């Protein structure tokens, strides 16, 4: 359970750090190639996790372009680091896409009005993101949901090694195959509980906005 939370938590953090600024930028600015970037982002939102796993596997394997570099900065296959990379690729398009939609939903005149009150460009972006906070938190919830329950990619790049890369989802697959249904069900309940509690915490972060 701890490894599941550590891997998915780290992947979510990286996804939020990339996805929220990217989503805000795409929602707020108009530039050449924006439509193509949006199309790519939407495609990324529907990436089959197992294909992402295959892609990361090929990149990080010893004969792959990154595996060949032998750099200490690049994680090896069958490590938690490789699983974080795969989960980040799965979740960041969701975080960026939902953030973009949330930012585009904020009244466009708000930007002009906060600028008229003396906001810098950065303060304007902050204000828009704060106004779009319900949608931004939904983006994080969606990103988390896509990776905490994901099995294909982590199985491929992690290898389901006991004590090293075995997470809740891959453990459930293994115990089911072994016929240990009680243990598989118990692990499933733990996974659902983690997901439920995390979403409750996120909803609390949204504050009273939903009550209005």
């Amino acid at each position, binding site marked *: 359970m701890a490894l599941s939370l550590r891997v998915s938590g780290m992947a979510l953090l990286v996804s939020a750090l990339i996805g929220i600024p990217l989503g805000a930028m795409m929602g707020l600015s108009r530039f050449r190639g924006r439509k193509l970037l949006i199309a790519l982002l939407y495609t990324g939102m529907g990436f089959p996790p197992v294909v992402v796993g295959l892609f990361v596997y090929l990149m990080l394997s010893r004969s792959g372009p990154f595996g060949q570099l032998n750099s200490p900065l690049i994680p090896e296959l069958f490590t938690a680091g490789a699983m974080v990379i795969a989960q980040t690729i799965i979740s960041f398009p969701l975080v960026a896409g939902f953030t973009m939609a949330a930012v585009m939903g904020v009244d466009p005149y708000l930007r002009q009005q906060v600028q*008229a*009150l*003396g906001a810098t460009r950065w303060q304007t972006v902050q204000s828009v993101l*704060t*106004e779009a906070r319900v949608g931004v938190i939904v983006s994080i919830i969606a990103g988390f949901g896509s990776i905490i329950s994901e099995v294909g990619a982590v199985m491929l790049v992690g290898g389901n090694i006991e004590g090293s890369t075995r997470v809740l989802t891959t453990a459930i697959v293994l115990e089911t195959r072994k016929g240990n249904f009680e243990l598989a069900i118990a692990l499933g309940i733990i996974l659902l509980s983690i997901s439920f509690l995390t979403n409750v915490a996120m909803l609390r972060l949204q504050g009273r906005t939903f009550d209005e």
Partner: protein
Amino acid sequence: MSEIVYHLKEVTKSYNGRRVLQVDSLDIQRGEILAVVGPSGAGKSTLLRLLNFLEPPTSGSIRFLDSEFSPDRTPPLALRRRVTTVFQRPILLNRTVWANVAYGLQLRGQREFTSQVQATLEQVGLTSMAHQRARTLSGGEAQRVALARAMVLQPDVLLLDEPTANLDPYNVGLIEEIVHMLNAKQSASLVLVTHNVFQAKRLAHRVALMLEGQIAEIADVDSFFESPRDPRTAAFARGEMVY
């Protein structure tokens, strides 16, 4: 009322090659209320956006508080923060009335603003609503919050873009009273864009008529209404269509 706050020289603004504003010369003095009247699409709101430096002019220069700006030279933040706008349709932040009024001060890095916010809320008659969510207010109350969040900044220039359009007579009266008080107490220059010639008559020291992006006539309020030079001004003052 002798100090010149703004001096516009041969300022134009075009969008996609279409010229929407052409002001050959315009001075705005400290402490005056200048009303800008004219039909829709005459360039009034564009003029305000240029005066608030929300957009650069396409050509020409704007001298503001002894510094000159052109399409290539935009004012620094500190100078830009000495002018603000109250818009026709205020977009308030999804926070309390108090937080909305304090917002501009927070942007300026101010940490202690309790007394300023309190005093401003009193001036606009919204003390009892300080902790109410701003988005639950009526149109008139929301516009008073918008005025309060601008007033609390004590700007040198306050631009008002049809602040009383679509409001009931009670709120129109209240806002006009606040505008008067603001001008008298803070000696701020006010540029008021309005469709309402009677409001211009009640509030302004000078009135400018804008037609097709140009200033057709600008004069003291009495001259503008009593002895206009341009026949279109006389027609506009009588409430006739002018194009």
